[in-house]
């Protein structure tokens, strides 16, 4: 507690630290809430400027951007069906239908409050047990467990957002297949960078580096949504969303208290594991909320519990993601990888000794993340009352701006125009997939977890001497694989039951 107070005093006792804190908070929220750009764009742009900052200020800045950016992405997910980051994708499923019903204020209010609750809970857990948790996670989680967790996560999340189980799995598999483009994780052999069909051949150096997930995400969510709305406008079938300013009541929050608690646990656990991060946390939180909810049939149609589950889980992962970074030097995602870059720029090495050698840095970061989440409640409330007015601007005026931002965002990633082509092609594919009942979110989930899953699988096979039953020789991986298989079996049975029910209703 003393260390936390000291960190808070260091944060608010220095005008420079306060300015950086406020900049990170507002920057993260604005970039997170602007379709086409996200917190990674902001992080990449300001990374060079951190050279001139004190290391504790630079790390604190990025941790605040991380908290605020994950929250900000929920705004566009709810208002325009365009998630600011992949971890906000499940928020669309219920947030956007709520907007169409005129409950945008309620949805954003729930996202604000639950983001803050998830983030604060995660910050407290992070402060109380970073060393112990990091040690346990590393001992208990080898490649077998990472692969088993990804398998379990995909098994329970695959059908989210799709018309049926088959289409959900096909969406995820398409993402997994896209993720294989590039080099293989063991031998570094380029895959799919050259091809040949009917005597025609091609070779692409771009494909040797793999397809980056940012243009795909921008394409599947931002561009395909613009295409979808544009065709509706052209056909005269667009339903105009309504602005609503109501904040959720205390009763609304009390009703979803167990969902929040469950999502905090899921988010924190997923966030600790390097590479898994907030995306799987949000999908797992959403799927578990759907499984245990009394209002299960309302999910996907504007159920506030869906917004609560995904936003609590993805923010609960933010604090947890700092644990492997600070304690072990293992970044869990793109923004934490940038923080690794800051450590390197300043000649520091994160690891267990950082708590002894750079206590000030650690505790100002912890304090900043805690207070950033507290500020999100107030700023988020203000944003609820103001940002929903964006809905009053006709979408046909906003759409070209959204596309322009997406074009610049995709191009600026690697200064390659081909990334913009990938984005637009993904946009067309996303449009067609949505129209036919497939899940764009499923493709993105498969794409993000595909490389990590394959890498964990190859390492597991090498460690287990190519014995598939070896997964059951370790308790955690065995249980996760069995739970994943049970989830698939349960989904298939549910699908058949649904079919029978539909048949009975039709008879």
């Amino acid at each position: 507690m003393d260390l936390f107070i000291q960190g808070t005093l260091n944060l608010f006792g220095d005008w420079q630290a306060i300015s950086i804190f406020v900049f990170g908070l507002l920057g993260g929220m604005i970039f997170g809430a602007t379709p086409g750009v996200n917190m990674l764009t902001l992080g990449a742009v300001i990374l060079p400027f951190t050279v001139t900052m004190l290391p504790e200020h630079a790390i604190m800045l990025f941790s605040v951007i991380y908290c605020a950016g994950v929250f900000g992405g929920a705004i566009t997910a709810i208002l325009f069906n365009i998630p600011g980051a992949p971890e906000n994708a499940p928020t669309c499923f219920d947030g956007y239908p709520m907007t169409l019903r005129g409950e945008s204020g309620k949805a954003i209010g729930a996202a604000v409050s639950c983001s803050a609750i998830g983030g604060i809970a995660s910050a407290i857990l992070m402060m109380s047990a970073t060393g112990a948790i990091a040690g346990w996670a590393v001992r208990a989680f080898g490649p077998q467990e990472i692969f088993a967790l990804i398998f379990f996560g995909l098994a329970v999340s695959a059908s989210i957002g799709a018309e049926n189980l088959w289409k959900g799995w096909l969406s995820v598999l398409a993402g997994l297949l896209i993720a294989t483009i590039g080099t293989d994780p063991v031998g570094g052999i380029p895959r799919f960078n050259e091809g040949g069909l009917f005597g025609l051949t091609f070779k692409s150096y771009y494909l040797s580096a793999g397809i980056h997930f940012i243009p795909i995400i921008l394409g599947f969510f931002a561009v395909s949504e613009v295409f979808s709305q544009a065709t509706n406008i052209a056909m005269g079938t667009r339903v105009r969303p309504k602005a609503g300013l109501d904040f959720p009541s205390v009763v609304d929050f009390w009703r979803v208290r167990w969902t929040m608690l469950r999502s905090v646990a899921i988010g924190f656990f997923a966030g600790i594991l390097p590479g898994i991060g907030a995306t799987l946390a949000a999908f797992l939180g959403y799927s578990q909320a759907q499984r245990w909810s009394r209002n299960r049939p309302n999910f996907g149609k504007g159920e506030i519990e869906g917004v609560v589950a995904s936003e609590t889980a993805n923010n609960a992962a933010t604090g947890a993601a700092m644990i492997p970074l600070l304690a072990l030097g293992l970044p869990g995602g793109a923004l934490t990888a940038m923080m690794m870059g800051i450590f390197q720029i300043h000649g520091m090495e994160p690891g267990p000794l950082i708590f002894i050698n750079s206590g000030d840095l650690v505790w100002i970061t912890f304090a900043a993340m805690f207070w950033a989440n507290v500020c999100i409640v107030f700023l988020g409330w203000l944003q609820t009352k103001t940002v929903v007015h964006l809905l009053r601007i006709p979408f046909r005026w906003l759409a070209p701006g959204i596309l322009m931002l997406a074009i610049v965002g995709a191009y600026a990633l690697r200064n390659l125009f081909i990334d913009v082509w990938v984005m637009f092609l993904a946009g067309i594919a996303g449009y067609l997939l949505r129209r036919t009942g497939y899940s764009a979110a499923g493709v993105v989930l498969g794409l993000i977890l595909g490389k990590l899953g394959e890498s964990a699988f190859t390492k597991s096979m090498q460690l287990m001497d190519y014995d598939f039953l070896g997964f059951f020789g370790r308790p955690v991986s065995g249980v996760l694989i069995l739970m994943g298989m049970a989830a698939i079996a349960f989904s298939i049975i549910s699908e058949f039951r649904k079919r029978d029910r539909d048949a009975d209703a039709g008879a």
Partner: protein
Amino acid sequence: MIDLRTVDGRSLGGQLIELAIWLGLAGLMYSQTGLFDREIPEYLFGATSWPRAICIVIALGAIGQFAHQMLLATGSGTDGGGDRRVRGRTIDFAKRIAIFVFPLIWLFLAPRFGFYLTAPFFVLGMLLLMEVRSPFNLFAVTAVVYALVLLIFTRFFFVALPVGRIQAFYDVNVAIIGIARLGI
């Protein structure tokens, strides 16, 4: 009995095309794995096992999905709610196609003529495709979006967007950048 006209609200032909696309994709990608089928000394399964396994599961999933739709049609014994396709006019169809084709044409032209020169035309074209017809709105929205892009990405963040490969247009793009950064 399966209604040959519609299954789950879409035509049987549509379902068959969907199946063919998935099988075609899986088959095509599987066939391409042969081009990098090399041994890796430290990994028995090589570079191809993972993508090939995914291709096989995609093919099985596509067949499962098709069978599921068939069972759905058999189980319900109805026409699945009738043919829900909207038969629009040719002009509507052309508009929908234009929404997808226009950005691709712009993507082809932008690296050649430069982003800064072509961006306002892209915004204007998208606005027209989205049925904005008022000259004032067309001009105002284009000007605001273009000004914001120049201000944020060119003046403040120094993002190096394409300036064109054709000399005359290259010069114009560089001049626009110069104007956007006046006073810096």
